[in-house]
């Protein structure tokens, strides 16, 4: 990445600016006691329920194989629940997708980076739902693409083939596509994997500004340390919902220990091992090999430590 300052959050959202006539729908995701199984009949998630509303960034946390991607696939209509129901903005999943209410930012591994498309082409794909059936872009579509590229700082790469970009740039292209799409609900699958620190905080700023704009984002991530920085809600799953609610009350060591079992690196520092006085406070570091989650205080009363990003990174 060049030395430019990434300020993803400054301008107005392009998708909506370009389509003022479109009625805003209040975003919500309502998952009601769903059970979804793999093709071989084994249940992947059981009895999962949660509700998310407008102006929310929600983290989806769990070990690999906990059903995160099954849940995403269900929200995208690729899988149908055996039991229970998902409603998006009050509609069945298929209806909500048809209306373009949901945008999706894929994991990097899901994308074929050798596909012959340029950055501008990919962002234009976000506009397909706004075009007629021949998908011929109009002025509004081109403006939305320009604005989205501008907002993620990728305007100068418009003519690059997508495989030529760095990890952080690749992510920003797909974020731009979601912006150009102008959807009220955005699903992000591991948005911080393979991304440099500067892009990571730029993406967080962008998501925060979209939240202030009233949108709903569901973010699947292993990056535990960054969750308190930008997520106001957390859903912790392992085959079923272990805990869900506001980050302050839900994102606790007890809940995470339950979700991750022995999988997380779990380091305690302090208390009796470190000094002889009566100070029982200790530091706990939880990490899934990405940015660690740091807690400090007496046992069971530990508080999140929000490191100053400029220094710790």
């Amino acid at each position, binding site marked *: 990445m060049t030395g430019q300052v990434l300020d993803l959050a400054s301008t107005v959202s392009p998708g909506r600016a370009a389509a003022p006539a479109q009625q805003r729908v209040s975003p919500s995701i309502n998952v009601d006691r769903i059970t979804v199984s793999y*093709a*071989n009949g084994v249940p992947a998630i059981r009895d999962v329920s949660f509700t998310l509303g407008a102006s929310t960034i929600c983290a989806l946390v769990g070990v690999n194989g906990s059903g995160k991607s099954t849940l995403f696939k269900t929200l*995208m*209509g*690729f899988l149908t629940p055996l039991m229970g129901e998902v409603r998006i903005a009050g509609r069945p999943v298929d209806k909500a*997708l*048809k*209306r*373009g209410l*949901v*945008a*999706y930012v*894929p994991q990097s591994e*899901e*994308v*074929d980076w050798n*596909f*012959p*498309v*340029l950055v501008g*082409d990919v962002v234009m*794909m*976000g506009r*397909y*739902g706004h075009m007629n*059936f*021949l*998908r011929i872009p109009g002025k509004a579509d081109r403006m939305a693409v320009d604005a989205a590229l501008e907002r993620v700082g990728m305007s100068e790469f418009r003519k690059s*083939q997508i495989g030529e970009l760095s990890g952080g740039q690749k992510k920003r292209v797909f974020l731009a*596509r979601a912006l150009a*799409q102008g*959807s009220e609900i955005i699903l992000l699958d591991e948005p911080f994997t393979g991304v440099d620190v500067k892009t990571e905080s730029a993406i967080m700023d962008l998501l925060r500004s979209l939240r202030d704009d009233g949108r709903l984002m569901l973010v699947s991530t292993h990056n535990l340390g960054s969750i308190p920085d930008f997520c106001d809600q957390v859903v912790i799953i392992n085959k079923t919902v272990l805990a869900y609610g506001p980050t302050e009350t839900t994102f606790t060591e007890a809940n995470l220990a339950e979700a991750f079992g022995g999988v997380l690196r779990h380091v305690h520092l302090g208390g009796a091992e470190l000094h002889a006085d009566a100070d029982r406070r200790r530091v706990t570091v939880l990490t899934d090999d990405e940015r660690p989650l740091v807690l400090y205080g007496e046992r069971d009363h530990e508080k999140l430590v929000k490191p100053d990003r400029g220094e710790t990174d």
Partner: protein
Amino acid sequence: MIDLLFEPFGYNYMTKAIWVSALVGAVCAFLSCYLILKGWALMGDALAHSVVPGVALAYMLALPYAIGAFAAGFVAALGITGLRRITRLREDAVIGLVFTTLFAVGLLIVSINPTSVNVQSIILGNILAISDEDVTQVVIIAAASLAILGFRWKDLMLTFFDESHARTVGLDPWRMYIMFFVLLSACAVAALQTVGAVLVVAMVVTPGATAYLLTDRFGVMIWLAMTIGAVTSALGAYVSYFLDGATGGLIVVFQTLVFLAAFVFAPKHGRLAARRAGRKTAEATP
């Protein structure tokens, strides 16, 4: 000399062979752009072999052979995708299983009923002796396929590039794939006539693979592939007049030659360009 070069055009059957081949080559090339990007080249081969029992049955029942071929291709595509979904077998195993089974059944039908159809013309193609009804069938298939592709190529591209995103703009990927395989089996049928079942796979792979080396934009790739497909197919039919050789073999040899040229000389993705770029980086970092 000039007279000799124009000689093939003096024969009705030659002109017909040339333009029908070009048409088929263009449509197959269009489809090849999608196939090679999804890693589904073998599916093209499978479909071409799978249509053989359909053709044999259609001849036996005195139906237009395209109907039989089409039904068999559809059965093959459904069988492959269905088996893939419900078993743990990998895609290549499923493809191999389904298409050899259907091909074997086809050969069996033909051998039991030897008079119904000439095996050789199915397997190797026989464009120089194509009947007028067959020309009509090929033209209808090609025109319909081109029309559908012309209208839906962007939706197909989106589906092949990113299924999840396709859903978010209201497309049903499953439906798009079915449409694609219907077109593919239709075009495999059309290509049977020109290059035969064995070489259809080249028609639905090589032009796309060549064009892929020449551009970074999908729309451009389609135009390049179609041009390559049409020109090599017409040329193959034309030259077969002089060499008295199999048209199918010639078409595929020409396509391979174009591919090799692109492989070496392509401006950005060719071997020479790669070597130049390598040398430049080496010079820049002493």
